[in-house]
């Protein structure tokens, strides 16, 4: 089990791995599909996100609870 942990690579390294060549074709396709999905999602989020982020975040004040 511990071995699995040690094999872990930091997120930043993994990302650059995926971006560079040496990736099999199906993986690239999956990657592109994911990217397309993420693009669609970001389009949607641009529409859904509160229009005035500054005011929204400023007005989001809560009292401590519990």
């Amino acid at each position, binding site marked *: *089990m*511990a071995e*699995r*942990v040690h*094999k*872990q690579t*930091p*997120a*930043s390294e*993994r990302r650059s791995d995926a971006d560079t060549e040496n990736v099999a074709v199906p993986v690239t396709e999956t990657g592109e599909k*994911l990217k397309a999905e*993420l693009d669609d*999602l*970001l389009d*949607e*989020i641009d529409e*859904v*996100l*509160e229009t005035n*982020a*500054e005011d*929204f*975040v400023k*007005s*989001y*004040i*809560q*009292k*401590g*609870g*519990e």
Partner: protein
Amino acid sequence: MAIPKVVGIETEYGILVKGGESNPVLASSVLINAYVAATSPRIGWDFDDERPGSDARGFTLDGGPDVEMHLVNSVLTNGARYYVDHAHPEISTPECRGIREAVVYDRAAEEIVRCSMEYSRSVLADDVELLLYKNNSDGKGNSYGCHENYLIDRGVPFGRLVADITPHFVTRQIFTGAGKVGSEEPGTSVSDVPFQISQRADFFEEEVGLETTLKRPIVNTRDEPHCDPVKYRRLHVIVGDANMSEVATYLKLGTTAIVLTMIEDDTFPNDLALANPVPAIRIVSHDPSLTRTIGLRDGRRMTALEVQWSILEAARRHQKRRGFASVEDADDVLNRWEQVLAGLASDRSTVADVVDWVAKERVVRAYAERHSIEGYDVRLKALDLQYHDMRPEKCIASRLGLRTIAGADEVRRAMTEPPHSTRAYFRGRLLAKWPESVVAANWDSVVLDVGRDPLRRVPMMEPLRGTRELVGSLIDSSDSVVELVTRLGATPEM
């Protein structure tokens, strides 16, 4: 010997008044009253049992936290409690015997909140709207809780319980954390901590204690069992985040119930005690790379992932030798626990559909990239807050393909019907069948108006009595609450 794990979740929701005066106490009351008026006759909560100042370490605090008796407080036919706590609407799920079942009731609570928002529109001016958020911080240093409750054996020495559960509470956030843009730890800023794993980690200042609003402790000692105090303890857990991911809620409850079983059976490894749990909980939260180590009391250093693997390995050994009869769904929880740790250790993106902070970090990063945002921008914080927005048309979390485990039909049913396997069944069914006769209810009793006689309090000191199996046909076949009470008197099994 471990006892059956009865579990429940209490969630305080963040509340905003859009287009109106910001009075969160009033707004919370309007919200809950709107729901109660639209769905059921109002049944009051009975405060006889509330002792939040009572401490598990064996003393009672003078001037302990007050129970706010004047605020709206209702019991629902699904056995839940819906009330105003401080300045937030809060729902406590009914007591559940199953881990998956508890997730269904937490989801039902979300739907109750959504309905409440809808119903409240009819009593508010046209341009006023109540907005609810299932999160735990406003990003300005104010936090509100999502508490878990677990039934445990009173015989377990409290000191050992604290020592053993702490490493799990400090490290489980790697899969239960809801994620947060920035930091609210005094002295740090968003440039030090652009994104962190947990909503709550910044607010913990003590290892163990009674408080929940100031100097919050990792292990809370509130000793209000709400059941037979000689046999049971209710562990009140305040260290967790509210989750949007159903699987994260499931893992949060399931892994903790498994760890508590190991503590009861004394099979939890004794070499995982942390040197400094309070700084450790922030070190883990502030490190989404999951590479920083925390110090153990024996001098070793481990990552949060390594601590979690060690706990899981011990749980697997326990499973092989004695099984986990005390935790419903334990085998499935163990499998999913292993999957999530493996995913976090190898390819993070494989758990973006179950771990809230991973899902949130991914979308925050992608959004920043698209809009060429370098460092902090207020839009990223807006995205963070809106991840938890309870309006379906505004919620970000529900757009990210998070995996579900509760079916839509069972969630709908759970909004009005109680679980079958705990005393919540008795409470909920009585409210549904004879609302006019239930004068008050709380976790461990129901007060009934039986006509000319004095009010009758029916104690429910055993969380696993009052189930459908034990009282279902009795309730179904009684024509009046008087008949029920008479027949109950002749039924020692209840």
